[in-house]
């Protein structure tokens, strides 16, 4: 289902993470695919299963674990942090995701 508004403030990481964990298949405890590789220019795949995550939570479901806020640059140890060029001004410290990067699965498919 498509729910949730277009919200990309990484400071709301806690709430998003709680929901993300509730959905199951979260990266913390799910098996990671280790046979994935990608070439230059190809955006990284999601190595852990995230079925239904985006459909249920939209982009906040991604930022919740992979985005930065005032406390941490990403919430879960196993979650790769968004690179700085995904933030406004190319700076993680803005804690705000650069607009065209707002739709995560447009570039990052499930691995």
């Amino acid at each position, binding site marked *: 289902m498509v729910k949730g508004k277009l919200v990309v*403030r990484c400071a709301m990481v806690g709430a998003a993470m709680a929901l993300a964990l509730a959905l199951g298949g979260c990266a913390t405890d799910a098996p990671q695919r280790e046979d994935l590789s990608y*070439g230059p*220019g190809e*955006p990284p795949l999601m190595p852990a299963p995230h079925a239904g995550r985006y459909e249920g939570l939209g982009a906040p479901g991604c930022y919740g674990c992979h985005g930065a806020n005032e406390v941490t640059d990403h919430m879960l140890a196993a979650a790769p942090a968004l690179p700085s060029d995904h933030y406004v001004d190319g700076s993680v410290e803005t804690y705000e995701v650069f607009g*065209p990067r707002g739709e995560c699965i447009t*570039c990052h498919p499930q691995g």
Partner: protein
Amino acid sequence: MELSRRTFVKAGAVALASAAAGGTLGVLPGCSPAASSGASGVAAGGDTVKTVGVCRFCGCGCGVIVEAKDGRLISVTGDPDNGSSRGLNCVKGYYLANALYGEDRLTKPLIRDDKSTKGTEGGLREASWEEALDLVASKLRETWKADKSRLAFWGSGQQPIVEGYATAKFWKAGLLSNNIDPNARLCMASAVVGFMNIFQTDEPAGCYADIDETDVFVTWGANMAEAHPMLYSRLTARKLADDKVRHYDVTTMATRTSASADKVLMFRPGTDIAIANAIANYLIQNNLYDKAFVEDHIQFKQGTENIGNSFEDGYDASDVGKTVDAVENITFEQFAERLAPYTLEYAAELSGVPAEDIRELAEVFADKSRKVLSLWTMGVNQHNRGTWMNHCIYNIHFLTGRYALPGDGAFSLTGQPSACGTAREVGTFSHRLPADLLVAKAPHRRYTEAVWNLPEGYLDAIEKPGMHTVKMFRELSKGNVDFLWSAHNNWAVSMPNLTRFLGRGDEDKKGIYDCFICVSEVYPTLSTQYADAVLPAAMWVEREGAFGNGERRTAVFEKAIDPPGEAKWDLWMLMEIAKRVLDGEVIGGQDAFDTLFGQVYDKQAADFTGTQREVCRALWEEYRTFSNPQLNPKASEINAAEKLKMEAKQLAPYDLYIEDHGLTWPVREVDGQWLPTLWRFCDGPQEDGFDQLGVAQYGQQDKAAGVSFYKSADQRPSAVFRPYEPPAEEPSDQYPFWLCTGRLLEHWHTGSMTRRVPELHRALPQALLDVNPADCEQLGVKDGDMVRVSSRYGSFDIQVSTAGRTAPPQGIVFAPFFAEETLVNLAVQDVYCPLSKEPDFKKTCVSIRKV
């Protein structure tokens, strides 16, 4: 879940928000070191070579930089210098290189000796090119000589421009046949007929930069997040850049696109015309329309009504079918009277959308302090009244003076990479000639004869339009087509009513078995299973080509690598077949083939007269003459005498499209420089993307809003009243659900390429039927259950999902059409819009039962 909206105060830092009148994107920082500005054929380190390209898939037309090493593609990245995408891309584009390397690429010609093996995976044997070409050409020539009404070519909005141009020239001038149509008939025809009816020119006035400029988005039947990902990224970026930007999603079901909407107006299928008319009526009744704009620019019309539906093969020739295009002028007052019954309450009753929500949207259009951009795609076009709904959207924009202005306009999004550039611009439709010209108009035929160096009157033989797509396949299924050649499409998966067209349930399978079918392809598909001959084609950057995208941008993709095995450029196949079919034929006393193609092909040598670049350039320069009549004295004379205004779509010399990474037409020569146009009919500096030269040459400069619709009759586009008429079929006890089909992000059309990309296939491995949970409960099914979906056309089996990409309301189900094994089109109706002949893929009535 409800997270608070962030305060996005750094709008100035968001490069996407355009500041200049050009309004283009800032360069997107790339993820990859390879995402730097590419240069044509430049060594990129080691022995790698970078070339300029444009994505192979959807109508966005994203620019890409292609990097190759040792004859193999190693990366595809966003091209920051392409004005359409400015470095953005989507998952299909990023993994595009892998689409060339499926294990089962077709590398040798194949021939089927036993027609009874059609529809199976077997029955094709390898052949030499000579044998395959001789066979295809002999079958075509045999049919042509016997009865040329029984031959057909089905092309594509994925066919590169010069190939489409050459194909149209061979078919129309070489064979004197109009039985050629593209698969763009399935996606853009309603928009095209709308453009022609309203503006007398087939083109959007706006451009993608409008997305960066607008204050309010209205998406009508458009799931941009899945079908136009790059443009949806621009939409969301614009929304993030300014808290005041609003988005209204007018749709029959919640989609990923609805997620960014401030309000979703979810309507009962087919009632969008009632909503649009209610908005127009509200604007007039409440004196909220732009009187100056209406007075200066618009004429009013009404047309034939109660036009029924095209269930029967004979619809087009029926009494009503023959009159569907008729219109008559009416006054503004009469127009208002026709709209008067469409009160908010009446539209609410029909559509299920609260009257207050319709009023709110009408007020949005009325508020001239803010810009409004309508965007639409297949929900509007694939509609039993698709052309009418196009009219209704323009009506609202005309009444509010919102058209052809930066950020303030109505924009029909194209489905395919070259639906505009090839299908529409070079004339591969059954009723068209290049550059908007029509076979039915004598001055248009004279002009084409001049450019093609044909005797005057030669094209009078093709005065009557040929078979449109649905007619082509309906006639084929009845055994009335003896030769079909298809290229750049997969009709056996993408056409509606496949139960009929594939002969399923048809004992003698007469049409599909008897017809000689030639398929040019890169992979085995369901279409090749019905082919008598398969010609292995070079794919994407294995040859040079060009696409024209939805914003009038023409972009070249350079050849980067060689095709595998014996796969060949489609243009070479066309030349070899044309030379065989036209052997011994003459045009005006001269050899027919040489008259048409002698400038690029040496038939004795069986090869082109130059490199691919030289061939593309030569054909482009010939095609470009259509929009540059000064290059041909006879054409120039006809253009002036008949007031054709052919310069209005002026194209630039070929090489500039490579150097500039694409240009939007018309491209104007000013002081030796070629300047593109972003906003058509809008007066302003040409160097900033406005249509200064066009308005100065043909238009008027003192009219409301600074626009001048100089291509329209009397310089006035038409607001045409169109009434609400119900869908072709309504849900019943027997078929209680609406079935809507469409695309999803990871797969392009029928999946013949994207399903061979492991990353894309893993992400979306199968087609699922999205069903509302309440409907699941009623049906006694749950997630993962297999169900049989049946219509009065046919049935298919599919797995149920309540957590898919779309969230249909009760009574509607959605399925994507990319999966050959699911083949949803077995059950989809082939009823089409009576004006555009585009099928309605969105409203088939079906039953669902667990299997």
